[in-house]
């Protein structure tokens, strides 16, 4: 399945079924993330319900502290 993450194409395996699976796949599970799935902001509890399909767009932002 091919999806777009932060504007870049990403080929993911079948076992990545939902947004939570994608976060784990990207190794971001420990970070507090603001996530938009097909232009819809998700609450954390929705990550597992947000099923990924071919062509989906996911945007991920995280806060950092440095200045």
């Amino acid at each position, binding site marked *: 399945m091919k999806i777009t993450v932060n504007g*870049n194409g990403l080929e993911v395996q079948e076992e990545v079924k939902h947004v939570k699976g994608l976060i784990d796949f990207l190794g971001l599970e420990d970070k507090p993330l*603001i996530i938009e799935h097909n232009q819809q902001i998700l609450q954390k509890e929705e990550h597992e319900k947000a099923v990924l399909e071919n062509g989906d767009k996911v945007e991920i*932002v995280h806060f*950092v*502290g*440095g200045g």
Partner: protein
Amino acid sequence: METNRYHRQILFAPIGESGQEKLSQSHVLIIGAGALGSSSAEALTRAGVGHITLIDRDYVEESNLQRQQLFSEKDMEQKMPKAIAARQRLSEVNSHVKIDAIVGDAEVDILRKIVPEADLIIDATDNFETRLLLNDMAQKYQKPWIYGAIVASYGVTFTVVPKKTPCLQCLQEYIPVNGATCDSVGVIQPVVQKVVSQQITEALKLLTGNEAALSGKIISFDLWNNEHVEIEVASLRKADCPSCSEKRSYPNLAYDSHLKTAVLCGRNTVQLRPQRKQTDLNEVAKELQKNNQIKLFQNPYLLSFEVDSFRIVLFQDGRALVHGTMDQMEAKNIYHRYLG
């Protein structure tokens, strides 16, 4: 006013003569004069903002020069406080701008005096404790502020407008507890300019009456990995937010008068801020000189001395930086041993 100085900016239609006049009447508070603060301050000074207040608690060191554009090797050699060195350089860039420099922490007492008179606050701090405090202050006095932060090749920015956008407290669940900071992964200079470009463009919109052009989005980018993301976050505004809703109580303005410690970003350094305020640096130097093991350096703003494997820098406002440790208890012990 010189007619030619802002010619190109006035030609830019959304600003024009009236926008330039508004800029010249504006007061911007910049919190932090490190990488982001240096760059923001220079941009606003060149743009002809009438009055800029800079607050910073640190002094110039060698590792700053790679990305903190207002500072020179001479500033480093003289251990100049960043706010003072920045004011010096900015007044050379544009002598018509009034620049106030405050060497100290952006704490409640200081912000309470400045924020009501400012039109806008630029966040150039390196920690969320100060950001949450400034967020509450901005909400209390209904002032917009512009979050900006950087680490490695990643930057993120968001404009907080009271009553319009979510505030930082609304987004609190997304604040990293022990997230990456500049101490472990470094930072490259272009990401500073990219975040500041975003922040200052938003600032120009706000200051010239072009609020309709504000982005309303959290914008992040990773320059090295060629990523750019914008997320519309209006829906994350919280109806029961303790900082910006009708039930507001400003949880981050609670006054704490005890000795406060903080580990500084990117440095093997702890800051201590005691309750007592002004310190007579000459008196302290005289005392310390009785111990001939101690190597002293002094300028009009600070006193620096080395002892064992530590270097301690004491400022006029009573704050001390203890270099050589990230252990807050150890820093407290050293402070009490040499400074009472």
